[in-house]
């Protein structure tokens, strides 16, 4: 199973955790990021787990997301380019000043 049987590339409701998308997810009953991660970690309460599995049974796109993320998690570590972490840290530090709360940056 390599996920190639699926044509979709991700649940249209599950978009990177911004506020609007979170609201849309609730409306569409697709699990939000926390719930999805909790299901993958097997840390949800039984009723919540049932609710996710009910949804997964009916939503092939979320099911594909589930397969793909599970496979991602099962993969071994990849060597990360040495300069990347420094580059990310520099970006955070210089992005509109120090990384303090209360700033709004559009990406």
């Amino acid at each position: 199973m390599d996920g190639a049987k699926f044509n979709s590339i991700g649940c249209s409701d599950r978009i990177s955790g911004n506020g609007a998308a979170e609201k849309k997810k609730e409306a569409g009953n697709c699990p939000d990021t926390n719930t999805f991660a909790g299901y993958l970690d097997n840390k949800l309460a039984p009723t919540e787990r049932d609710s996710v599995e009910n949804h997964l049974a009916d939503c092939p796109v979320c099911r594909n997301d589930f397969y793909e993320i599970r496979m991602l998690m099962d993969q071994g570590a990849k060597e990360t380019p040495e300069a990347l972490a420094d580059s990310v840290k520099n970006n955070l530090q210089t992005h509109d000043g120090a990384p303090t709360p209360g700033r709004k940056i559009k990406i």
Partner: protein
Amino acid sequence: MTKNNVTEEIVKDCIDGNDVAWAILVDMYIGVVYKAIVLVLNKYLDHTDEHDVNDICQNTFLKLFINNCSVLKSYDQNKSKFSTWITVVSRNLAIDYIRKIKEKNTPISDIVDSLHMGGVTGREKISVPEDVISPRQHLVLRMIYDDGLDVEETARFLSVKRQTIRSLHHRAIKKLREHYGLGAGQEKSSCPADTTQS
């Protein structure tokens, strides 16, 4: 102190605007983020550009950081490990990125079709009446009959033993037979996806 506890403290410090905590968070999770992005781009794009991978890595951490850390604050430590949560977030950002690329180069009708295709593989989906079988039994039937997984794969995805999948399958079929008045199933229902069953 476990890694989870350490992460909880670091996340709190990041939200408080501690530069050192941000540096530690990046060092701890850059590998997880990088792996998720590389694997997703490799899967969906013919050509993976290291520059794109770097951009999405940068955006993932920025996403946690901007708007008063609203996304980072949304992480619920009671529900999942941080590494799992950030894998989901990174993968979502990579998917958004791919979607944008594909939308640029694809006729709109194809995009609409792909959004509605989901996991349907051309076969008609089996119909399962509500409340006859448990959510997990229903999910197992979907994974096996709609998605074509075998018992081994289904067990691995759900982190349970193969025997559990066989049992869930057997009980689901038995309940469905009863529901449709086909008898309780005189013979044991064998799972068509079970290649290891004797």
